[in-house]
């Protein structure tokens, strides 16, 4: 049906090459191959964890044009919720059996996602609903939500940092020659890829994405077409929160100590990733996360002082190249 003289948008592949190019470029600088391998794999895994945390944010923004500064709170809540499964079942975790451990871990993940999803649902109803389409108010009100959530964590779980030990079988690393690869990071990679693929398919293979994008631009009209847009929104928001929760558990297990502020601590990092990727683009967010983690690792090895600002530097560089991030979505908000 489409018309010959109207070229349909060309595939934009350039960003896909960033990661491999960067990695290869670093090999000579670092010199020793094992070191390079260790750094790279670690970086990729770290990137996956960041991606999981960021994906929810970018999803909610991309689909609903809601910038949720409270996202970090869900990360923290997710992690804390997981403790409610992991600490009681400590026994099972200390048994040195991979499958046992993974089972419990899976349970914790699911539980955490449920909790954060429900919380997200409430959050949308109480806090986001009245401010759709008003970025300013969104930023303000979600920040308020963030403060409250963190304080409530303090009330429920207390102010002390909670230790969250890794399952025995996930501790330590596997060694390839002199290169060390922590086992837990491999898990992160797997989970990250699963999240990415499922999000990608749902958004591009179903009518859902369309509907919500339209709803954001003009909810009134979508309703006039006969859709209950509100329900969809709340569902998406809950999904986004659940992803944050998932990210929170992965992150918490990596850090092994939980504090109420653990979410807001990673927020800046997450934001940078989301910006680099292009607000709302899942693919971009994925690449952005990997890039950032890799740059941090390489910088940390080659020039530790620079590591402090490497994130900002990366962001600036990308934005100079593409002012709207790797993959800009629509012209919304422009």
């Amino acid at each position, binding site marked *: 049906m489409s018309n010959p003289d109207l070229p349909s948008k060309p595939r934009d592949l350039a960003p896909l090459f960033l990661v491999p190019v960067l990695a290869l470029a670093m090999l000579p600088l670092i010199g020793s191959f094992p070191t390079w391998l260790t750094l790279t794999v670690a970086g990729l895994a770290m990137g996956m964890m960041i991606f999981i945390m960021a994906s929810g944010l970018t999803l909610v923004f991309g689909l609903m044009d809601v910038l949720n500064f409270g996202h970090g709170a869900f990360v923290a809540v997710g992690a804390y919720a997981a403790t409610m499964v992991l600490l009681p079942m400590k026994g099972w975790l200390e048994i040195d059996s991979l499958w046992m451990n993974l089972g419990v871990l899976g349970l914790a993940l699911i539980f955490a996602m449920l909790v954060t999803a429900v919380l997200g649902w409430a959050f949308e109803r109480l806090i986001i609903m009245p401010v759709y389409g008003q970025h300013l108010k969104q930023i303000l009100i979600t920040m308020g939500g963030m403060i409250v959530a963190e304080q409530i964590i303090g009330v429920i779980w207390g102010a002390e940092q909670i230790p969250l030990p890794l399952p025995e079988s996930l501790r330590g690393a596997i*060694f390839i020659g002199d290169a060390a690869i922590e086992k837990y990071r491999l898990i992160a990679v797997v989970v990250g890829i699963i999240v990415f693929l499922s999000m990608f398919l749902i958004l591009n293979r179903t009518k859902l994405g369309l509907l919500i994008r339209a709803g954001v631009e003009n909810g009134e009209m979508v309703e006039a077409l006969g859709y209950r847009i509100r329900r969809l929104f709340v569902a998406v928001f809950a999904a986004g929160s659940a992803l944050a929760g998932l990210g929170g558990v992965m992150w918490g297990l990596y850090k092994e100590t939980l504090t109420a502020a653990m979410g807001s601590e990673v927020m800046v990092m997450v934001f940078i990733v989301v910006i680099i990727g292009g607000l709302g683009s899942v693919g971009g967010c994925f690449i952005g996360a990997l890039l950032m983690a890799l740059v941090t690792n390489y910088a940390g090895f080659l020039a530790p002082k620079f*590591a402090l600002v490497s994130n900002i530097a990366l962001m600036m560089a990308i934005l100079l190249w593409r002012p709207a991030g790797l993959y800009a979505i629509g012209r919304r908000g422009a």
Partner: protein
Amino acid sequence: QEIKIALIAGKTGALEPYAKETETGFMMGLEYLTAGKMEVNGKKIKVIIKDDQSKPDMGRALLAEAYGDDKVDIAVGTTSSGSALAMLPVAEEYKKILIVEPAVADAITGDKWNRYIFRTSRNSMQDALAAASTIKAGGSIAFLSQDNAFGRDAIKAAKEALTMAGSKAKVVHEEFSAQNTTDFTAPAQRIFDALKNKPEPRILQIVWAGPSPMNKLADLKPERFGINLAPGGNILPVMKLWKSYAGTQGTIYYYYDFPKNKMNDWLVAEHTKRFKAPPDFFTAGGFAAASAVYTALNKAKSTNTEKLITAMEGMEFDTPKGKMNFRKEDHQALQTMYHFKIKKDQKNEWDILELVREIPVSDIPVPVKNKR
């Protein structure tokens, strides 16, 4: 007519957990010493607790308020070194005593010191000397610490300490990582590269406030390169994560199971009874501060600042860690430290460390850095 004492701590914000411990310790201390009557020299003791949110400006304002408006006789605090440093001049302005607990910055009893300042908590130098005393032999050392005032202080102290302790070990590398570093792969790689094939024994000493990267490094199996980790002690929730690194050695300020005296026995028993967990690092600190206050008031038989100062200089007082005393020169409380090893078979979740050796004051010759 009562005696007013202000306890200032960072009860909200990043250091919240520490501050809570200090407060508990301080109150339990007074309770124990006054046998629950909360009286000294026949006067009631009133404790006014203030939260400086670890913000230096707040700390300063609150201390001024405590001395000026609440008219307290002695103030104790605070958690954050920054805040404590900002408080020092206020004590001088109001000519009142400030007992610093648990801030560790050397400058407090160093060049920022004034004669109204006493400190019950140990300072970075004491930590460093304690650590150094465990590394008398030769070999190679690398340091890992956070890249901020605290970290750099600590490493400076640590190196100084090594020479003072007459250790023959050579410092081959210093790694400073950002406070908020989450991924320690890169620093670890740098350190390993620096340490491997340097003369044995190879020791990586970790000085880190807050959640320690110790286990992240351990996971990378430094023993591959014959490297041993030497973490500084930390609060129990953090050390719980070290279980799986049995054998690792380090030094610590307080661990509930180490000191053997009835004050500590009572503390451990009571604390475990009330909070379902043994007392921690900062609990002991708070307790010690309380003891210092109590003993001083008792000895001076007055709340007059000058009388108190004369009483306190060189004063010896009991703490859960045994005896401490404020030495005359810089009012730093000299105290024992502990050389620990992570246990292999642990009886319960709190049973983490075993004592290698108690490090007596004589092994911790803290240099006097202040000018009077």
